[in-house]
């Protein structure tokens, strides 16, 4: 069963993502900010990460960079409402494997995860 780390400061979004992923056979871990995401990534080595960008403590781009330092092969999908081209480029350059624009589209999330981890 593929394991996915959901990173979002909004409990509402974590709940929606968890429900969707568990219904489709994924095992889910959660983190509510970038710092916790890095810690949980190291502890649990998930198959993929679904990462928001706008978060307190450590934002999603910083967390992505920290995770890639520790695991260059990490599969991180950015899932955010911020779609400014310069930010997308920064995320891709930092190693993000996909960039999904909110509002949350279940089909796009599942398709992206399937492509990365099956």
């Amino acid at each position: 069963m593929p394991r996915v780390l959901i990173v979002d400061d909004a409990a509402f979004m974590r709940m929606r993502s968890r429900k969707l992923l568990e219904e489709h056979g994924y095992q889910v871990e959660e983190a509510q900010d970038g710092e916790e995401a890095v810690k949980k990534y190291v502890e649990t080595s998930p198959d993929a990460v679904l990462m928001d960008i706008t978060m307190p403590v450590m934002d999603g781009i910083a967390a992505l960079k920290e995770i890639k330092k520790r695991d260059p092969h990490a599969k991180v999908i950015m899932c955010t409402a911020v779609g400014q081209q310069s930010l997308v480029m920064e995320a891709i350059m930092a190693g993000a494997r996909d960039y999904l624009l909110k509002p949350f589209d279940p089909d796009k999330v599942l398709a992206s995860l399937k492509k990365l981890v099956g």
Partner: protein
Amino acid sequence: MKEGTTIAPTTSYSASELETLRGILAKGMESAASVLSDMIGRKIEMSVPDVCFVAREDISRVAKHSVEEPTIGVRIGLTGDVTGDVILIFPRPSAYRLVDILMGNEPGTTTSLTEMGGSALCEVGNLAGSFFLNSLAEATGLRAMPAPPVLDGETLVSKMLEASVATRDASAGASETSGSGPGRTGGRDALVAQTVLTQSLESVEALFFIVPTNNSLATILNALSSGNAKGSGVI
């Protein structure tokens, strides 16, 4: 909601500059309203945005449609090239109905604001703020980020606007209070863009404000005049 007090606008911007700012802010608000429609799966109507400068001391009376009873507010700070606030204010019944829609509950289920309900409203604010900035980036090439949303479960329209301007005053420092800074209003005036979002079928209503800092207004105008938008945009 009822009509608020009319405030005489004040500004040292030219009519064409003010019209440009009005257009940019209105487009950003339309983009935000559109994504909120997508989020809840129902069409949201938006009143024609009203954009004007008001004197600092009039900020508490600026709302064209005010709500006298305590409301639920979500405030999203903007950081980067453009600073200020995006504010969404919901009368309580509207907030509860919106939470029911977002959580997939039967209408009338939500009768008080839970942590999860508050988080859902914050996500609405996050989307509104982000898509406003996405639209602004597309038009100007400027890069700005929304801060994590802050929820106030017991507020007034006037209180939220006063808090926004107080934050602006505190963070702007000398650049906006010298009287000769790029804002050209000497820090005495604030630009407020406002509209009303309505979902008629579910009787959901929200006030939507954008309160950019005066320095940001100059930045936006400069970006437009120098053609920074070329090659920028959103995905």
